[in-house]
């Protein structure tokens, strides 16, 4: 390239009269001194390396609603884990005093005792209070609500995990492979989406009742076929929303050049999905799983309410609310406890999910 630079008589480049450039000919090296190492190190600004996760957590803990719901949820968790250790009653136990069945302990109000128990206390015995009273079958209501919450949370948690695993596998395969595979897989999703879930749950639980045989006394047996069919239905039907969501995420992440870079390195497909694509849609996965839990709890509760939930005597929040319906006029507080519990759990999870979304997915924020 030929550059023609105008020069003055000394051979130095000529300056435009309007130039604001410093005239370097006025300076020489003696006028400058070298920066010491100390001065150089002052220029190094090394802040703490912040990861995506840390940054998200910091934002989450600034959100008062999210912090509130975390506190409420951890309190509920603590209570359902530790309360059965302190309360001497079992959820299916019919109250008795000194081996004699306490027939008077029916529908007691909170913190009251039956006549038999009062006699026992007056005789010098100690009796653990019935915090929520008792039900019409003389069982301690507090411990039943605790176990009901346990069941509901377990159902909500595992149902969400089933949904997450199936939806994630299906969605990531469909989104990554794309093309005709994606087309066929998404039409299957559309078909499943159009099935009436309630009907399937009822039909399945009827069918499963005759097919499934559990060893008596096992955990599966105490859950009952209704609950198993509920899980199966979650596994069969509810993953489609998650699958669609993850497919959409992957379609957009796939366009990034770092995926192409991984391919050019020679990374196998499995590695690209697990190392590059999934970590980048992790925030969406966490958020939608957190929002999936309350909806699963809610489904379980209203299935139990209509009599399709857990097998008696195992309580769940929905079946407790259902049985409280009978004595609604005389003992209305019995509906209050399980209903309040459902409200608290569902509300907290929803608020937590919203908080997570705000913290981890700035794009979704209004």
């Amino acid at each position, binding site marked *: 390239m030929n550059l023609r630079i105008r020069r003055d008589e000394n051979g130095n480049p000529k300056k435009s009269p309007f130039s604001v450039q410093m005239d370097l000919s006025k300076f020489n090296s003696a006028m400058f001194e070298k920066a010491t190492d100390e001065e150089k190190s002052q220029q190094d600004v090394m802040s703490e390396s912040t990861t995506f996760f840390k940054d998200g957590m910091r934002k989450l803990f600034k959100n008062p609603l999210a912090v509130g719901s975390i506190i409420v949820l951890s309190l509920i968790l603590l209570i359902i884990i530790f309360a059965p250790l302190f309360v001497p009653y079992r959820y299916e136990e019919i109250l008795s005093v000194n081996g004699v069945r306490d027939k008077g302990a029916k529908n007691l109000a909170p913190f009251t005792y039956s006549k038999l128990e009062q006699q026992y206390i007056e005789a010098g015995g100690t009796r653990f209070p019935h915090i929520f009273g008792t039900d019409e079958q003389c069982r301690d209501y507090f411990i039943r609500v605790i176990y009901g919450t346990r069941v509901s949370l377990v159902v909500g948690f595992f149902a969400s995990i089933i949904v997450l695993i199936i939806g994630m596998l299906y969605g990531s395969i469909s989104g990554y492979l794309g093309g005709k595979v994606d087309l066929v897989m998404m039409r299957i999703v559309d078909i499943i989406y159009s099935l009436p879930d309630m009907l399937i749950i009822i039909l399945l639980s009827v069918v499963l009742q005759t097919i499934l045989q559990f060893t008596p006394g096992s955990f599966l047996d105490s859950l009952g076929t209704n609950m198993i069919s509920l899980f199966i239905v979650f596994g069969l039907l509810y993953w489609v929303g998650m699958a669609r969501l993850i497919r959409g995420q992957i379609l957009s992440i796939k366009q*990034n050049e*770092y995926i192409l870079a991984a391919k050019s390195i020679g990374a196998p497909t499995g590695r690209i999905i697990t190392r590059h694509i999934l970590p980048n849609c992790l925030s969406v996965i966490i958020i939608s799983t957190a929002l999936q839990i309350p909806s699963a709890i809610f489904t379980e509760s209203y299935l139990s309410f209509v009599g399709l939930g857990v097998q008696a005597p195992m309580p769940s929040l929905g079946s407790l609310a259902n049985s409280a319906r009978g004595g609604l006029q005389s003992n209305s507080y019995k509906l209050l406890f399980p209903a309040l519990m459902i409200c608290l759990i569902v509300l907290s999870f929803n608020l937590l999910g919203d908080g997570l979304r705000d913290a981890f997915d700035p794009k979704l924020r209004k």
Partner: protein
Amino acid sequence: MTSTPLIEVKNLKQYFPIKTGLFKTEYLKAVDDVSFSIDEGETLGLVGESGCGKTTVGRTLLRLYEPTAGEVLFHGVPVTKNNIHGMRQKMQMVFQDPYSSLDPRMTVEDIIGEPLDVHHLYSNKSERREKILTLMEYVGLNAEHATRYAHEFSGGQRQRIGIARALAVNPKFIVCDEPVSALDVSIQAQVINMFEELQEKLGVAYLFIAHDLLVVHHISKRIAVMYLGKIVETGTADDVNYTPIHPYTESLMSAVPIPDPDYTRSRHRIVLQGDVPSPLRMPSGCPFRTRCRYACAQCAKEMPPLTDRGNGHMVACWVK
């Protein structure tokens, strides 16, 4: 003795199917019958305007796209679907956009270490770390940057990370897909100098794709000019730059900005008329004829072949 070139591309074609109707599929001829070769330790510059297929050539070379026709020979061995995994240790790529070519969830150490992981190039953790630190030193990054994430770096530093990743497998050949066009000018110079230093030190060959003609002239030994998926002129960097023959190259070179107002005022700028035709509806014969000042009847009939005009300066034009 004439040794086999490092990379030899023979009649490479890359057509992308485009659905234009319900049952109709047309083909977008992104790369149409391109041939060139690159010797060991040499740099071939590939220039052309946006959308002329430069990037596609680079990606097809590395089999990121399955070519429609033609073959790529590496040391005389054809690169196929079956041996590409091993070939990826010898051929690598540096990407255009330093912002989207690094995974935002990975640390620098993991980004640079990924090729090592994929090809099992280390026996233990400390050897992996050692290799990564050496690579980082090559591209001028500090060791304390290793645990940081890509978003904490500037564009130039990110591009260095991308280059270190490409160097990790110790390749013989790197496709540089517009590696400096996303950087600002002062950083461009640094990165380009680094490319040259690395070439001297490691003896890698580059296919340097860019649309900045000054940059390409600076770094390349030879230059190939592309227009609408075809190579229209190729030769040594000086030949193509100072004595362009093809009318397209002529107009391209006249558009190079030169920081001298007197010279710029005096020189003749060849402005092309019209737009680039759609690659879906390519003109018959020479693709450039619709905008060419010299176009004649023969240009519409047949695509001119690349003919030698002396000193390996190949031009595809009937008229000139």
